[in-house]
């Protein structure tokens, strides 16, 4: 793999930029691998990358049903942050955020990580108390959090509706300055290129159709391109975790739901940070191209359709317009949906399964993008040592039956109540 640099670009200027090579190979699947990763999304590719780079395990295949970047890694709202209240979550997401900070250099691929600040608005005294509590919980773990007054918020985001007639009056906010956005496609491509450079086989248009069992052990996978034997099989299938696990006879504490996002036409800079709120569920940021990116609630009923219902989209847009009335003048360019695996406490599931040789990394609900490097690093560590890393131990699959959920929102066991 040739290294991308300003010098190589300059050199290319003299030969018509004819030096460019495909960023990764398109190999035929071998009959056997040490590790087979099901799912070529961000998490699967990151896992393969760190397995090869950090642990020297390079006989790895990433098997993708569609194409790289076509799933949730290309369908999210690109938000990166680690502002969580519960320690297992903030520790995990902070680990991930620290990887984000050096990711472009590490991958030699510009993921356009932009720590522009993750701003959570408070609309009442109760909101501000909750934000202060969350900020304190973060601060004691050494994570940056700053409580802002209404006047301070006004300086950062002047386009918000600060009037006293506002539907959601703004009392203040909590900001994590190190949070922000990244370019999601580049994350997928960067990890794919990185993993490939260490010899990982990325096999696209190859659907896993079954698990090959040897007693209680998963010894390989049946795919649309033949059987592939594996020492370890790792599920990184996001919204499809449930029915992939079902191939090994497992039922997961997961329901797959549709999550939508949408983007307006491009405009000059008007939203500086990632705007979220403590009371509503809508998140707004401005892409580097200028489009205002919206996201909201999932559709709250199970679906694998990758298309959302207009009602949910309207709700997200209504909330966005109430916060930033000027957005009403913009036209929506595109909307899309992804299938998210909603876990029953809102936290991810990483670790072993009741089947030997089968590991799972899923249940990301609608917060998987920011976890991509951290999830990949820690899952790779767990696979390499055949033991869950200490940071992901609280996210084991059996935590539900043990009565130890990691319930950030305190909303109980049903994903549609979240």
């Amino acid at each position, binding site marked *: 793999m040739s290294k991308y640099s300003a010098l190589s670009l300059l050199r290319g200027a003299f030969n018509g930029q004819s030096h460019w090579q495909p960023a990764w190979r398109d190999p035929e699947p071998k009959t056997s691998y040490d590790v087979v990763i099901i799912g070529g999304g961000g998490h699967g590719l990151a896992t393969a990358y760190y397995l090869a780079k950090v642990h020297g395990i390079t006989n790895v295949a990433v098997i993708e049903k569609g194409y790289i970047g076509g799933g949730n890694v290309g369908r999210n709202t690109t938000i990166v942050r680690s502002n969580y209240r519960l320690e297992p979550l903030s520790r995990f997401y902070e680990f991930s955020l620290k990887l984000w900070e050096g990711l472009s250099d590490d991958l030699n691929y510009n993921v356009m990580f932009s720590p522009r600040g993750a701003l959570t608005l408070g609309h009442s005294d109760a909101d501000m108390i909750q934000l202060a509590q969350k900020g304190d919980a973060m601060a004691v773990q050494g994570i940056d959090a700053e409580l802002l007054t209404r006047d301070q918020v006004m300086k950062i985001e002047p386009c918000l509706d600060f009037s006293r007639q506002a539907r959601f009056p703004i009392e203040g906010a909590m900001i994590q300055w190190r949070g922000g956005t990244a370019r999601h496609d580049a994350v997928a491509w960067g990890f794919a290129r990185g993993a490939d450079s260490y010899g990982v086989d990325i096999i696209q248009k190859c659907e896993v159709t079954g698990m090959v069992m040897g007693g209680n052990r998963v010894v390989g996978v049946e795919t649309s391109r033949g059987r592939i034997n594996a020492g370890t099989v790792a599920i990184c299938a996001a919204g499809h975790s449930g029915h992939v696990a*079902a191939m090994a006879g497992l*039922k997961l504490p997961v329901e797959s739901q549709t999550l939508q996002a949408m983007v307006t036409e491009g405009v000059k800079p008007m939203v500086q940070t990632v705007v979220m709120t403590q009371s509503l569920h809508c998140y707004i940021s401005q892409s580097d191209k200028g489009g205002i990116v919206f996201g909201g609630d999932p559709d709250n*009923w*199970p679906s694998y359709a990758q298309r959302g219902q207009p*009602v949910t989209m309207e709700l997200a847009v209504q909330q966005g317009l109430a916060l930033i009335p000027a957005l009403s003048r913009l036209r929506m360019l595109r909307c899309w949906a992804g299938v998210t695996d909603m876990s*029953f406490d809102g936290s991810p599931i990483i670790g072993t399964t009741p089947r030997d040789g089968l590991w799972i990394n899923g249940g990301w609900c609608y917060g998987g993008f920011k976890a991509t490097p951290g999830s990949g690093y820690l899952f790779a560590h767990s696979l390499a040592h055949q033991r869950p890393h200490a940071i992901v131990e609280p996210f084991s699959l059996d935590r539900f039956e043990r009565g130890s959920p990691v319930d950030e929102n305190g909303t109980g066991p049903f994903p549609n109540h979240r």
Partner: protein
Amino acid sequence: MKLIPCPHCGNRAQAEFVYERTADSVVPLDAEPDAAVAALFARANPRGVEEEIWRHTYGCGSWMLIRRDRVSHAIEWVKPLGPEALP
């Protein structure tokens, strides 16, 4: 908008309905711990047809059982659901 045939009101907009849970996830009051854990947390989550409990919350308020495809969203049937239908 998608229409759901409520057993009492006929076809109504889907926005009037709330999805509650799958039909197999109702925990019987006398369930053993293993059965309760399975009912609460183990989901087939099929990429296909599943039976689900919905409620016409913003309409007549009645509960119903819907057999529905989770990919195409096509509804196979809707049945009224009352206390006698619960385990």
